[in-house]
């Protein structure tokens, strides 16, 4: 049957088969989910590879997680953002499997699966109810692409454990529906429990409540983030600034640390 043989089409450009330097990291398998309309799956896979891990393509129609140790739900316009951004993708068999694993299993069988939703992936995670809140159209009503400063506010997730609390990073932001909203009770809870993982720094680009750019679930294994760390992983192709001082043109790689953080958490766990 088509689905079992399905991989993300062999990338024309990226070489996912390249040997990683650290064999312990290389054994970490990170699934990258693709739906129809997903756009950033190659970038997310490249980020995993550059961090030293092994990306594993996951097709939305399947429900076999292929023994991955973590999952990235990448950005794009799954199903064209029709109905609501992320709403249709949330119903895919693969997301049912991801949701189940995120709430139970993990490498050791005891800890839950780490999941990172980026942009549209974040929207999918809120539609799957793994994360609270929702995204609406930017307050300025336009698509906005820019290099965005973020404060890493929580290091209590596998994706951010390698950061210092309050540390600033710069990664690209690009979306039309990026305004994070939630009811007052939820916002208060997120703040009180330290579950605001990323907050916009240097100005709120889209009217998000409390300047929230990313949140975690109560257990901290599931994180959603609107801006795109997978676009800040390689010198020459990223943003032109970084949280840790000046960098050469397009050479900001702050996003890579989110993927490295995960890999190191998993091998040291």
């Amino acid at each position: 049957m088509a689905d079992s043989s399905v991989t993300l089409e062999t990338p024309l450009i990226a070489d996912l088969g390249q040997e990683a330097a650290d064999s312990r990291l290389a054994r970490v398998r990170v699934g990258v989910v693709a739906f129809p309309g997903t756009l950033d799956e190659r970038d997310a896979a490249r980020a995993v590879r550059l961090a030293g891990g092994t990306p594993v393509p996951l097709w939305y129609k399947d429900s076999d997680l292929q023994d991955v140790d973590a999952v990235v739900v990448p950005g794009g316009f799954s199903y064209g953002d029709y109905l609501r951004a992320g709403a249709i993708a949330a119903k895919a068999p693969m997301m049912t499997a991801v949701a189940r694993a995120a709430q139970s299993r993990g490498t050791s069988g005891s800890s839950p699966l780490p999941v990172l939703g980026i942009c549209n992936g974040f929207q999918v995670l809120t539609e799957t109810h793994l994360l609270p809140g929702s995204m609406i159209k930017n307050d300025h009503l336009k698509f906005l692409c820019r290099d965005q400063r973020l404060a890493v506010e929580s290091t209590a997730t596998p994706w951010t454990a390698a950061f210092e609390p309050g540390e600033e990073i710069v990664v690209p932001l690009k979306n039309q529906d990026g305004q994070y909203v939630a009811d007052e009770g939820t916002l208060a809870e997120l703040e009180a429990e330290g579950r605001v993982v990323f907050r916009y720094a240097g100005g709120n680009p889209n009217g998000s409540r409390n300047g929230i750019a990313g949140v975690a679930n109560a257990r901290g294994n599931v994180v959603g983030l609107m801006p795109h760390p997978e676009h800040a992983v390689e010198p020459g192709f990223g943003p032109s600034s970084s949280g840790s001082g000046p960098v050469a043109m397009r050479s900001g790689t702050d996003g890579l640390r989110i993927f490295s953080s995960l890999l190191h958490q998993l091998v040291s766990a």
Partner: protein
Amino acid sequence: MTEQQFNLDTVEHAADTPDTELPWAELGLKENEFDDVKKILGRRPTAAELAMYSVMWSEHCSYKSSKVHLKQFGQKVTEEMGKDLMVGIGENAGVTDIGDGWAVTFKIESHNHPSYVEPYQGAATGVGGIVRDIISMGARPVAVMDPLRFGAIDHPDTARVVHGVVAGVGGYGNSLGLPNVGGEVEFDPCYQANPLVNALAVGVMRHEDIRLANASGVGNQVILFGARTGGDGIGGASVLASESFDDSKPSKRPAVQVGDPFAEKVLIECCLELFKGSVVEGIQDLGAAGISCATSELASNGEGGMHVDLTQVLLRDPTLTPGEILMSESQERMMAVVSPANMESFERIMEKWDVEYSVLGEVNDSRRLTIEWDGEIIVDVDPRTVAHEGPTYQRPYERPEWQDAVQADRFPGSEADAARPAGTDLRGAVLELMASPNLCSKGWVTDQYDRYVQGNTALAQPDDAGVVRVDEQTGLGVALSTDANPRYAYLDPYEGARASLAEAYRNVATSGARPVAVSDCLNFGSPEDPAIMWQFAEAVRGLADGCMELGVPVTGGNVSLYNQTGGQAINPTPVVAMMGVLDDVGRRTPSGWEADQDGQAIYLLGETAEELDGSEWARLRGHLGGLPPKVDLAAERQLGDMLVNMSRDGMIDSAHDVAQGGLAASLSEACLRFGVGARIGLGEVAERDGVDTFAMLFSESQARAVVAVPRSEEVRFKDMCTARNFPYARIGVVDAENGALDVQGEFSLDLTELREAHEGTLRRHFG
């Protein structure tokens, strides 16, 4: 079965009723063309045949007014130009060998008329159409670019068009996951009722994956897949793109197509999988003229014939007549030719991607294209007469008598030049220039486009060219720039077209890439006006001559005529897209200096004459007359070669071309690129070239670039210039501390103030 609301006009019926009145004029055919159709068929056409001929013989599809001129692109060629060309003009898009087994295909097209009627959908489907051209060659699209031209920035209708077009380009391209890496934005009253929306797409593939669309192999299946066919865009090519706008006619809104980028994204992946598995013999995209075009072109390109059952077409609107189905320009559709042995694989891939398809017919050896509806033959034609043997016009053209008066009206000495700024007044002049609609920051536009997706963008706006990595292992990549200078072309279409070519060439070379191929989008007024036709003929001649001098071939492109409203034509706008190759995109040259270049020497390459006619400064003073700057393509070629070599050998760390707005714009942009200042002294170079400081700053002499040279490289740099006998002058140093563009002895301009002026303009007008 469809409930028929019309009387089916079969071939048999047409033969029996020679005197039936047909709406050929309403469909855009001229009387002589209708007579030709009858002569070809030996009878009157059926309603469906008339629909096919009318769209395929439209200016937009047949190039009937332009092809006698365009053939120069195929004639004025040298051996050097053909060296890397794998597929030339005439296919969906040309293909160029860039080395290491990689091939690149790129093409630029217009979607002008629809974008005025319905800016969002017009622009969106413009992106969609050009991307399908790229897919049908077997390539994965990797980037897009959009040269846009609008009316006066403060005209009450401009904001409507700007908002719609920019959102449409972004909405479609962003949803496809294609980085938008450049383009142009121009505002000029001549585009008020004729905005220009040109769209470029570039795709990459391995040599062995190149596919040409043709229907060969008797028994092969002809399959329509993708979106269903609806009533949108009917007659788009014939009615919209091939006629001038006229207020007296009813609204043409129904002729604009509606785009669904999600469907197209799925089509991209689906087609790539079809190609990769060699499941298809060929794929033809459906653009202008829809099924009429796809069937007749596939059949015409193949050696046999084709039979199609139109009732098999999956419809969104079941009331469509056969003629409407043939003409519909519904988006996101493709036609594949598949051998019976591959049908199972084809079906499996369609199922994987949830794409609808239907088998319409098959390839045969009749050399005819026959189409049936409910078992009755409604089309029986030689496909070549539809697709390739349409009318050709030798339209009369003549240099208009007003051209002399225009050229005699030089800017220097004119009333507009009465108060030429000097000394400290130059400060205000530079600020005014950099805040003007055509030189202000285009960030408001480009921030609405995704430039990061795919992770291979090495340069994008505001740098001189967009640079995209093709091979992640080696860093091999391509650079692209699109340029036009319609004001120069108005003053002298031949020289103006060559200036556009020179600028695109220079921009690509400035980024460090070796220019290798051209695609062009020729936007002009009505070919029925001999003066406009002269502009067109001159521009094409200029481009063809220029390409030969530069040694780069034209690989394809598009012509958009009838860009005029109420007798007022646009300035002739030949947009040139240049593609270049970088062996390693890591070596690309940025257009400005960074802080760590503090103390590097700034050099001006090339010579400056007082050439202010048609300049941005003249535009600011409301003047358009005289002769455009002289174009010296041998000098451009030498400059380009030096820029590429200097970049590769590490002799320059930044480079920016000097074009519209002259040295004033180049220096301002180079400072603003990374917010790093410079101390400049122009006295010596102005004296060398015999011009005043104002002309030094605002003249638009060609074949110039500003470069920053590391101290350790200055000797090698000067040696190379000297060895090649190319004029150079040290005009200053990078200053990471002063925070200003400091032109010594004249003025100092704080970069914060300059940035506010530069970036505020579009935000102020469009929010």
